[in-house]
């Protein structure tokens, strides 16, 4: 896992695995065993007490897919919690439509959740699912293309009606016509089994059939031998106000479990042992939650109240939701009338001495540009979080992209430099947010933090840091009684200006968006002063202290460097591991700091004969690196709203080494143009 933080509680390290609840009296929990002490070996069968074999796996990728009303995200989240508390390493990636409820049973309405669990340190949610849970024909059709030969499909046959098949263009039932013969298919009438199972709870048929996702979860929990106790507890808590619904969901969950246990349809359960991650206390966390926590902790480290101004926008709204729940620790959130007011209020809060934060996605960042420029001019701390999504314009609201890098760098009028940082994984969002706040407060500057849709909703284990072991942040506000205060007299080392917050007696002053005179901060239209101030603002950003990049090159002999930023860390890292296992030497650099770049980056780039930058855009980092270092950085670009797979990047490494990558990349533009030409010719 990336970027682990120091383990907090050394004294707790004696316990191997977390609380493992095994109320032995419950019959349906037969099959639960203590986690095995040994792993390794691809598949090894173990005789279990229940009479079913358990196959040991190092890792498995499971995808839950269904209609957007089927509760697949909840199912995935629950399975994730089970895996996390079991001690697996894991990574998750949800995928859901922009529509809240697309027409039922259609391809656009398919919502899915993918999780990879492993007994070793993994970097991604996996390229291809080993197991697909398909709650309806649309879910099967939308996902079957991603399955490798030999994958397992668990399909809810109740939904495979003639009508539902026709909705997605199946003329025959694929579960019966032999078209799935490459796969192991388990046809399970989940809806009717669920309705039957929940009858004692007294809920109506509608609520009853809605519990079918818990049936699926129960079945998968049995297959992977997960503790059911925590899920039952979760369901009782979630539906505390509706005990009959809680009961129905619990019954459905148990029914799924018992189905696996008793039908003998499944020849084996599977066992993925706990992973040996670095010592520490872990939890599962999504990127948006980690960002929220990072902001809260940054405020505590700086001793400042946290203020978040935000306007709802996918996929950033969860940051607003998270922080809105934190009034008990003094966090103030403001759902503004628009994106501009959101950043404006955050800047106002910063001016008043709070940690001012705004969160948004690309379209919102475009609207905030002028206010960020004001923060550049007034040199106030401001944390701007952009959870990137597919663009331009409204684009692909629920899909990921990295195409706001140049907007973050340059998307304002005038010479308007800001610091830019990017987290590399969901858990890394925590440290990235603290780093961004530290820069903002230390250098009195807006900092743009570029997350993206893949990180925001994806999750992974996180080694929980001990806050008292993190470095404090000193906002260094000017105290009352400061003699000779000048708002634009800079710290000679950081070039940061002194901040006197309103309320400080004797330091009353005025600032604004007009050019400032060096030192006094008075309005100045003087030509030489303007040039001086532009250069000072730029020099301040250029001089931000950032750590050198670390090169991941175990052989120290690679001639190929893959350089990335943001959420591509997982797939690039995994692709490099696979290449190295084949004896291919490749180096990997992943940038946290995009402005300024780390001081050693130019030297590092110069050491490799080939440098490739895979990005989910048309090559924005490559533009910056080429311009800055005059290095022939080759872009490898993908703009599909999807994260890279490790598999495709492993191929990129091979193509880079055999010299064909440049042609492949440049052919993409030509191919696109050709598509338009062909269509026109067809029309003629």
């Amino acid at each position, binding site marked *: 896992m990336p970027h682990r933080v120091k383990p907090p*509680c050394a004294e707790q*390290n004696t316990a*191997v695995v*977390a609380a493992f609840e095994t109320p032995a009296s419950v019959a349906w929990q037969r099959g639960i065993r203590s986690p095995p002490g040994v792993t*390794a070996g691809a598949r090894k069968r173990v005789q279990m007490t229940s009479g079913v074999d358990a196959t040991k796996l190092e890792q498995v990728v499971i995808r839950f897919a269904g209609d957007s009303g089927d509760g697949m995200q909840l199912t995935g989240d629950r399975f994730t*919690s089970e895996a996390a*508390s*079991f*001690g697996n390493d894991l990574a998750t990636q949800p995928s859901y439509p922009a529509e809240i409820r697309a027409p039922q049973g259609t391809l656009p309405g398919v919502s899915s959740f993918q999780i990879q669990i492993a007994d070793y340190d993994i970097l991604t949610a996996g390229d291809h699912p080993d197991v697909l849970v398909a709650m309806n024909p649309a879910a099967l059709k939308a996902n079957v293309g991603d399955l490798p030969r030999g994958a397992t499909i668990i399909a809810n046959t109740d939904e495979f009606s003639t009508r539902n098949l026709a909705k997605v263009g199946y003329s025959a039932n694929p579960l019966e016509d032999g078209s799935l013969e490459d796969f192991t298919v388990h046809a399970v009438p989940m809806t009717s089994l669920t309705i039957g199972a929940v009858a004692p709870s007294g809920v109506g048929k509608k609520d009853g059939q809605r519990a079918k996702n818990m049936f699926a979860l129960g079945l998968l929990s049995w297959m992977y031998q997960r503790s059911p106790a*925590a899920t039952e507890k979760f369901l009782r808590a979630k539906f505390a106000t509706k005990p009959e619904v809680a009961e129905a969901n619990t019954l459905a969950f148990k029914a799924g479990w018992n189905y696996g246990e008793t039908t003998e349809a499944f020849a084996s359960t599977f066992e993925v042992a*706990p992973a*040996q*991650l*670095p*010592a520490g*206390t*872990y*939890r*599962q966390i999504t990127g948006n939650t980690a960002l929220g926590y990072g902001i*809260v*902790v940054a405020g505590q480290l700086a001793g400042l109240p946290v*203020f978040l101004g935000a306007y709802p926008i996918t996929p950033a709204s969860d940051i607003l939701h998270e922080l809105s729940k*934190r009034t*008990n*620790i*003094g966090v*103030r959130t*403001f759902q*503004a*009338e628009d994106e*501009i*007011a*959101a950043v*404006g*209020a*955050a*800047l*106002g809060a910063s*001016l*008043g*001495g*709070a940690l001012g934060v705004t969160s948004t996605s690309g379209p919102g960042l475009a609207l905030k540009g*002028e*206010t960020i*420029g*004001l923060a550049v001019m007034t040199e106030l701390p401001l944390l701007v979080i952009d959870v990137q999504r597919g663009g331009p314009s409204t684009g692909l609201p629920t899909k990921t992209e990295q195409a706001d890098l140049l907007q973050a760098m340059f998307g304002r009028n005038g010479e308007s430099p800001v610091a830019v940082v990017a987290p590399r994984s969901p858990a890394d969002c925590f440290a990235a947010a603290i780093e961004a706040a530290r820069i903002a407060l230390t250098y009195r500057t807006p900092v743009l933090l570029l997350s993206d849709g893949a990180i925001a909703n994806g999750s992974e284990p996180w080694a*929980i*840091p001990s806050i008292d072991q993190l470095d404090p942040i000193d906002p260094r506000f000017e105290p009352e009684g400061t003699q000779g205060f000048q708002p634009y007299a800079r710290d000679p080392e950081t070039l940061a200006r002194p901040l006197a917050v*309103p*309320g400080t*007696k*004797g330091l*009353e*002053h*005025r*600032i*604004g*968006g007009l050019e400032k005179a060096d030192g006094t901060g*008075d*309005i100045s239209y003087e030509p030489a002063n303007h040039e001086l101030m532009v250069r000072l603002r730029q020099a301040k950003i250029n001089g931000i202290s950032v750590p050198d990049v670390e090169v991941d090159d175990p052989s120290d002999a690679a001639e190929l460097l893959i350089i990335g930023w943001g959420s591509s860390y997982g797939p690039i890292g995994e692709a490099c591991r696979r290449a190295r296992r084949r004896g291919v030497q490749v180096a990997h650099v992943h940038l946290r700091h995009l402005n300024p770049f780390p001081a050693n980056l130019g030297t590092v780039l110069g050491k490799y004969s080939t440098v490739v930058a895979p990005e989910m855009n048309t090559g924005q980092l490559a533009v910056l690196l080429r311009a800055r270092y005059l290095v022939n950085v080759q872009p490898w670009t993908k703009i599909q709203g999807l994260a890279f797979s490790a598999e495709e990047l492993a191929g990129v490494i091979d193509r880079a080494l055999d010299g064909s990558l440049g042609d492949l990349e440049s052919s993409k533009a030509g191919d696109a143009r050709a598509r338009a030409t062909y269509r026109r010719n067809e029309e003629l």
Partner: protein
Amino acid sequence: MTTIDLNLTAAPEIPAGDPPLKAKDFASDQEVRWCPGCGDYAILATVRGFLPELGIARQNLMFVSGIGCSSRFPYYLNAYGLHSIHGRAPAIATGLAMTRPDLSVWVVTGDGDALSIGGNHLIHALRRNVNLTILLFNNRIYGLTKGQYSPTSEVGKITKSTPLGSIDHPFNTVSLVLGAEATFVARALDSDRKGLGAVLRAAAQHRGTAFVEILQDCPIFNDGSFDLIRKEGAEQRLIPIAHGAPITFGDNGENCVVRSGFGLAVARTGDTPTADIVVHDAYTDDPEYAFALSRLSEQGLDHVVTGVFRAVDRPAYDDTGRAQLAAARECGSGAADAVQELITGRETWTIAEPRKL
């Protein structure tokens, strides 16, 4: 106009200033650079003269402005100030008011800044009722960009951008802010030092957003725009209002305001039974009354109502937010390590020292 005691408590969190200040204590070291004859000078003088009455220290005064001639205002006051960007002052001021209850936050804006580019922020600040005092200088023209028509310009206004005359209907500022659920609305004329002072006094006592429209001339691009209510015959047009007083105006109160249909109308006092003359009630919860008053003012300036239209109590957004925060803190664990508990969460697992795979 007489001083109105609105009997509302001023912000309790703002510390009192000492020693007592004078108008000149609020003059900054910056040279005032408005055009000669600009109404802004009179407003600045009145505001400087009024600020000592607030009784709060200079460091607890925060003036936020947007863009436009009026928005240079903060530079000329010896207090904390931010000259921000076009239209956004209410949003920025909202963030300040929410986080700093110890500040008296003022927004200085103009008809273009507040009603055109910043219209959205204005109406939302008003409906939230944030603790702000908003001074809108309305000169019915864009001055700083050298003379284009504004959203309060009368129809047919010939300007550089409307050589054939403007064709869009203007806002009635007071009607607009009442529609935006404003709790305090007043209007004054820049040159009416006494009336403006009284309105500022009432505004400063209001908890929530106090909105004050100040009618003002731009001698360069819209000279004489308000002459009809300044020069001879002005008393036939200006309708001053005071809470509890019958609304009469003109020579010896020869005109009055009466109910008419769904709204109000002007009538001859001599022809009107005393009981039919409307007695001004700034405290009535019904916004319909204040709205009807606002409709007496027309773009042609046949009548212009001045004074406090409406001053009602409604919880202020930032006060309520602070109350929520305080309540949540009390209900919370209160533990010093609440943040550590938060990030640790409920479902954790612990891994011991590495072992060989």
